[in-house]
C-alpha cells in the first residue's frame, strides 16, 4: 500500500514519455517494472508526484549489429533475458546475472534498465519510518546518518546492489541514454557516481534506452557469482562478474575485467588485480593472487549484517572461483 496520492500518465510513445518527464513541472519518475520504485514509495523514501508509466511501450527484441554487438532494450524484462535462448547463447554472463536477481516474480516484472536505476540500500532505509528512524537521513533529504552518526552531510554509505551492473561493466557494455538532446552513450562503468545520494550519473530528464554489449572476442571467458546466505530471493552480500580474454596461444591473458558489486556505493573494478593478469600466462596461482589483490583493493562497506572482514574473505574466495571458471571457459574447458 502506498499511503499518499500521486498522478499517473501512461504515454503511448517514448517521445511522449520523455516530454512528460521534462515538462510536467513536478517531481516525476518513470515507472517500468516498479519492483524497486514502488516499495521505495511505500516506505516514502521516494515521493514522486507523478509516475510516467512505460507499460504501454513494448521493448524491442535483442538485435545483433553488423559489428557483432548486441543491442538490448532497457525495457526488457529480466525474466525474458534469462530465458532467451539468444541471450543465453550470445551473452551468457548477462543471462546469468539476470537469473540471479530477486525471486522469479521480481524478474518477471523488473526491467534491465530499472535494475540499473535501482536505489541504494541500507538497513535503516529499507523500512517504514513511522516510529523507527523517523527523522529523515541524508539519503532521504534530512540531516543525519543512522548507521554512521559521524558522517558529514553529503556522505551516505548505503550500498548499490544491482546484480546486472557488474556483468554489464565486465562485458564492456555501452549504455545508451535518451535525453533532451537526443541520445548519448557512455560505458556502463561511467554510469555510477560513487556517491550513494545520487548513485547514477543520469539526469532526472533522461532515461536508459538500451544497452549495447560488444561481440565476445575469441578466447573469451566469463564468470559470475552472487553471494547470499540463502541462495536466492534476497539482495547480494556481494556479487562479482569477471571476463577474461586469452591471446591466440590460449594461455596469455590479453584482457581482464574484475567487477565487484553490492559492497559499495557503486560497482567497483579491481584495476590493479586486472593489471596483474594482463600479459601473463594464467595459472591457478596467479588467479588466486589476483583474487587476493582484488579483495584487498576493494574496501567493502559493511552492510546488511555482514562485516567488512567477512565480505573481504567472501569476495576473495569467490573471485578466485569465478576467475577459475572464466579461465576454463576461455580455454574451452566449460561453456
Amino acid at each position, binding site marked *: 500500500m502506498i499511503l499518499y496520492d500521486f498522478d499517473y500518465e501512461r504515454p503511448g510513445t517514448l517521445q511522449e514519455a520523455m516530454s512528460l518527464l521534462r515538462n510536467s513541472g513536478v517531481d516525476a519518475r518513470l515507472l517500468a517494472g516498479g519492483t524497486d520504485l514502488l516499495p521505495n514509495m511505500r516506505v516514502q523514501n521516494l515521493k514522486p508526484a507523478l509516475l510516467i508509466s512505460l507499460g504501454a511501450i513494448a521493448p524491442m527484441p535483442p538485435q545483433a549489429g553488423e559489428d557483432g554487438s548486441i543491442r538490448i532494450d532497457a525495457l526488457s524484462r529480466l525474466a525474458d533475458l534469462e530465458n532467451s535462448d539468444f541471450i543465453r547463447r550470445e551473452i551468457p554472463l548477462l543471462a546469468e546475472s539476470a537469473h540471479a536477481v530477486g525471486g522469479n516474480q521480481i524478474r518477471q516484472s523488473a526491467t534491465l534498465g530499472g535494475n540499473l536505476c535501482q536505489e541504494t540500500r541500507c538497513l535503516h532505509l529499507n523500512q517504514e519510518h513511522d*516510529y*523507527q528512524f523517523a527523522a529523515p537521513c541524508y539519503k532521504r533529504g534530512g540531516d543525519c546518518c543512522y548507521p554512521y552518526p559521524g558522517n558529514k552531510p553529503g556522505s551516505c554509505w548505503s550500498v548499490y546492489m544491482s546484480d546486472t551492473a557488474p556483468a554489464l561493466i565486465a562485458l564492456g557494455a555501452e549504455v545508451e541514454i535518451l535525453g533532451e538532446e537526443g541520445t548519448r552513450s557512455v560505458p556502463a562503468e561511467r554510469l555510477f557516481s560513487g556517491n550513494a545520494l545520487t548513485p547514477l550519473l543520469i539526469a532526472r530528464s533522461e532515461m536508459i534506452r538500451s544497452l549495447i554489449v560488444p561481440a565476445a572476442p575469441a578466447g573469451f571467458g566469463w564468470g559470475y557469482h552472487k553471494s547470499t*546466505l*540463502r541462495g536466492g530471493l534476497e539482495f547480494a552480500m556481494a556479487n562479482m562478474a569477471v571476463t577474461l580474454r586469452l591471446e591466440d596461444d590460449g594461455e596469455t591473458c590479453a584482457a581482464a575485467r574484475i567487477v565487484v558489486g553490492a559492497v559499495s556505493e557503486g560497482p567497483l573494478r579491481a584495476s590493479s588485480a586486472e593489471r596483474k593478469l594482463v600479459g601473463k600466462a594464467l595459472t591457478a596461482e596467479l588467479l588466486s593472487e589476483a583474487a587476493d589483490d582484488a579483495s584487498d583493493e576493494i574496501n567493502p562497506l559493511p552492510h546488511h549484517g555482514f562485516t567488512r572482514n*567477512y565480505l573481504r574473505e567472501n569476495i576473495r574466495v569467490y573471485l578466485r572461483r569465478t576467475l577459475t571458471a572464466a579461465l576454463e571457459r576461455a580455454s574451452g574447458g566449460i561453456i
Partner: protein
Amino acid sequence: MSELNFVGKSFKRKDGPDKVTGRAVYSEDVKLPGTLIGRILRSPHPHARIVGIDTSKARALPGVKGVITVEDTKGVKHGFVETPRYPADQEVLARGKVVHVGEEIAAVAAVDAITAQRALALIEVEYEILPAVFDAERAMDPSAPEIHPSHPKVKEEYANIGGKSEGGWGDVERGFAESHYVREDRFESQVRTHGYLESQVTLAHWEGDKLNVWTSSMGNFVKRAKLAKTLDLPYSAVRIHKTYVGGTFGGKIDLFSHEYCAARLSILTGRPVRIVASREEIFSAFRHAQPLIVEVKTGVKKDGTILAQQMRVINDAGAYRGSGVVVVFLAWGFTMAPYRCPNLKYEGFSVYTNYSVRAPQRGHGCPKVRFAIESQLDMIAEALGIDPIAIRLRNARQPGEELPNGDNVHNGNLPACIRMAAEKSELLKKYGQARKTPQTGHLRRGIGIGISAYFGGSLVYPNSSGVMVKMNDDGSAIVLTGAIDVGQGSETIIAQIVAEELAVGMDDVKLISSDTDATPQDIGAWVSGMTYITGNAARQAAGNAREKLIQVAAEQMKVPVEDLWVENKEVFNRRHPEQRMSYAQVFAASVATRRGDTIVGEGFWRTMRDEPTHPSLATTKGRWTENYAFSAQVAEVEVDIETGEAKLVKAYTVHDCGFPINPALVKGQVDGQVSMALGHAFLEEVLTKNGYTLNPNWLDYRMPTIHNMAASEDADVITEEYRVGQPYRTKEVGEGLVSGILAAMGNAVYDATGVRLYSTPFAPDRILDGLKKLQLKQAAEIRETTTEMQWSQP
C-alpha cells in the same frame, strides 16, 4: 479391539479444498460494511516518560471517528502469566512511560488508511527520554536503568528481575567432587521471530451488547478471556469467531494491544474496526522468541555417566513479563527430563530489557537448552574417548522411569530413539571422518546428534477441552470443538478420531470449530496438547454418541448392549451380523421412543486430572504432565571451509509421539520443525541497535527459502505399543523437534570442521573465525613439536 480404519492413516486435510481454492476465510478476508481502519501510534523511544499526549488535532481531522489513549481504557492490566506471584503487569496502552520502541500509546479509527495515517501524525506526545538497557546481564547490574522494580521475592541484589525459577535435587558440589571430569561452558542464542505469513489482523464489531471479533489467533478462549477482562465485559458479551489462521508458531497467543484497540474503538464508534499490523510493526513492536544465555557445568564419571549438572539461565525477556518467567521455568524441565542426573541444580532469571515483549515460540526455550547441553555432552564424550551415541545411551532415561517431580515417562523410550537414529543415519560410521582422513576440496561433511524431551498439554488456562458430537438424522455427525486449526491439522485429526469411534466416513463428519459462542471451551493450539487433550475429548464425545446409538438399538433390536457394535453407519449384532440398524433408523427410533432425544455425545479431557493446579513457576515443584515425548535427531551438514558457509543437507528424526493419528501430518510437523531449526542454525536473526529493529522485513530477516530445504526422514519408534487397546495414546509432535536437530547441527558443524560454536546462528564469519583460530592453534602445536624435537636431538 477391532482394526483401526481412520486413525493411524494419512487422510487428506479437511480444510484442504478451502485452502487451495482461496475459499478459506482468514481474519482479513472478513468484510463488514462501514468498517473503519484502525492504526496504532507507537513509541519512537526505547525508554521514556510520557509527559503529555495531545490528541485534539487528530480528533478534529475530518474522517477520524475515534482516538483512544490509556485514559479511554478501564486501566485493567493483563499479562501472559497471571498468578498471585506474577500478577498481570501490562496495560493495553502505555501509561506514564514507554519501555520499548513500538510500544502502543494511542489508537485511531478513521474512514480509510490514509486518514488514519494522517491522524497518527497529528497526535502530539511529549517525551522525557530515560536511559535504556539492551543487554540482559547489564540490566541485572544494580546500577542499570530500572525498567521495572525487581520481583520482591528475588533475594539477589539484581536489578530488573521479572522472575526467577529454581529447581534441583541432590548435592551438586559433592557430585562435582566425585566426578572424573568436569567442564563448564556458556552458550548464547540470537533473537528470532516466528515468521507467520499472515499478519496480525483484528476485526472487531460492537453491536450494542455483543462484541464480535475475528482475529488471527491460536487460542480463541484465551483471547476471549483477556479481551473481556480488559474491556470489563462478561465473557458472554465477547464472541471470537472462527477464521482460518495463517501460521502462529507461538506468536499469536496472549492478548495484543491492537486487539483491544480495535474492540474499544468499535465500542466507541459503533462501527466495525479493522487493524492490520504491517510487517515492520510485527518485527519491531510485536513479540519475538526469547534469547537465552545458558551456563552449564557438568560432572561425569569416567564412563560418561552424568553425576552432577548445574545450570544458570538468563532470559532477555523484553520490557514486560510476557512469557519470560515461563521460559526460565520450562528451561528447567527441558534440562531434567531426558537424562538421569543424581545431583542437579538449576536457576533461571527472567530479566527486563528495553526490547519488545517476548512470546512463546515453537519449543519455548527448549532449542537453546538442548543446544547447550547436547553440545557440551559431545565435548565431554570426546574428552573421555566415548562416542556420542554411547554417552547418550548411558544417561538416557528408560521407559517407566519416574522423575523426581513425580512425573512418569511411561512408555517414552529415549534409548530406542537414540539407537534407531544412530542406525538409520549410520552415524558411528560417518562420525569423525572429516577430521580423521586427509580431505581434498573445500567442502566438508559432518554428522551430529541431539536429543530432546517435550511435554504436551500442561495445565494452562483454560486447562481443558470439551467436545460435542451431534448426530444428524441421516446418520452423519457434526462436531462442535473449540480447537483452532492453525495449520497443524487439528480439524482433520478430530474428524479422524470421530469417524473411528462412530464408524462413519470422513465425509460424514463436519466440524464447527473455534467459535467461542458456538463451541465448547478448548485449550487452544498451544502447550502442544491439542491432539492429546481435544483429541481425547473428541474420542469421548464420539464414544458417548456411539453408546447412545447402541443403547437405542439394543432396545429396538431387543439384544443386550454388549452384543452390539458399530460399522459403516450401522449398529449390528456381533452374534448375528445380519441383524443391523442404520444410524438413521436408530436416530428416528431415539426421537420416537426416548422423548425426542436427538443423540448428542459429550466429551471432555484435561491433562493430569488428579492434579488441582499447574506446578509452581518459581520452585518448579508439582507435577508437570503425563506426556513426555522424546526424540533423537541426526543432522548431516556441509561446510565450505573457505567461505564458512554451512548448510543442513539431511535430517533424521526419530521421535516418540505416541500413536500418530495421521502419519503424513506428523511428517509435515517434522519437516516444518527441521526447516525452522535450520533457520535458527544458519540464517535467522532479528538485528537490533539500541532497541530499534534493523531488519523488519523478509529480505533482511532471512527465513529459509526453497533453496534451503533439507532432506528430512522421520520414524516413530513405538507405534505398536501405543496402539494396544483404547485409547490410541497420543503425545506431542508439534514443538519438540526444533531442538535436538539444532544441537545436532552444531555438533555436525564441529564434526565437519573441528570448530565448536557456542552461539547461534552458525554464521559464515563465525565458522571462518573458528577455522582460522584452529589453524593458528595447529600451527603453534606444530611449532612446539618441532621445537621439542630439536631439543631432543643430541
